[in-house]
């Protein structure tokens, strides 16, 4: 993990409903990165629904003053072949101002430990094929690139038609 001398190490914990508004500010920025409008209200609404229904698990990295520096969101799912549960690491974001300080690695380790505690048989994620910085992080944290599967998607038009 990359640590910066003189910079306090952020703490990482699981987010609760009371954290939704502070996480939503970062979640909105994360969505902007993927071409969505900056909408904190919508981001908060989505997060609140996921947490209220226990449909996602969110970990946050906090500075000493409690400011949220980054978050990761995972979706529990099932692993049919293994007859078990698995986690999809769906969203990971760290404020630009604190990148390269090991925040993302700490969040990834919280996911690893949480998945272990939950008995998940694997954790998977997807990233842009050209995002080599992220891929190096994932490989350092024990993730292996999957070249065994092809990813098919239903076209948006077909989804809309139902």
């Amino acid at each position: 993990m990359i640590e910066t001398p003189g910079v306090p190490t952020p703490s990482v914990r699981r987010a609760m409903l009371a954290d939704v508004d502070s996480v939503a500010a970062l979640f909105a920025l994360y969505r902007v990165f993927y071409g969505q409008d900056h909408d904190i209200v919508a981001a908060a609404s989505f997060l609140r629904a996921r947490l209220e229904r226990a449909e996602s698990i969110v970990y946050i990295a906090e500075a000493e003053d409690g400011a949220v520096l980054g978050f990761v969101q995972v979706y529990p799912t099932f692993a049919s072949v293994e007859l078990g549960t698995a986690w999809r690491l769906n969203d990971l974001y760290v404020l630009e101002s604190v990148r390269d300080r090991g925040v993302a690695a700490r969040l990834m380790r919280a996911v690893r430990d949480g998945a272990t505690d939950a008995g998940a048989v694997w954790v998977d994620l997807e990233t842009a094929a050209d995002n080599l910085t992220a891929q190096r992080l994932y490989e350092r944290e024990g993730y292996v690139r999957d070249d065994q599967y092809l990813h098919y998607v239903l076209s948006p038009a077909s989804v809309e038609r139902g």
Partner: protein
Amino acid sequence: MVSGARPTQRRVAARALLGAAVERLTGLGARRIDAFVVEDDVQARSFWDAMSPHWGLDPLDKARYVRVQP
């Protein structure tokens, strides 16, 4: 894929199952539906390729990573 039937029957059954699943998921509000298919499975790939243009390889150039938990 559906085992224990002739190839044509399997494909018809698979199409029907997939159609029912898509209908159910879109009915629940799904905005994205995807599937991971073993690259070496010729029959499976043939099936999914035959579902074009509704289904196709993800146009976004993404890489999947997996961490198997100890």
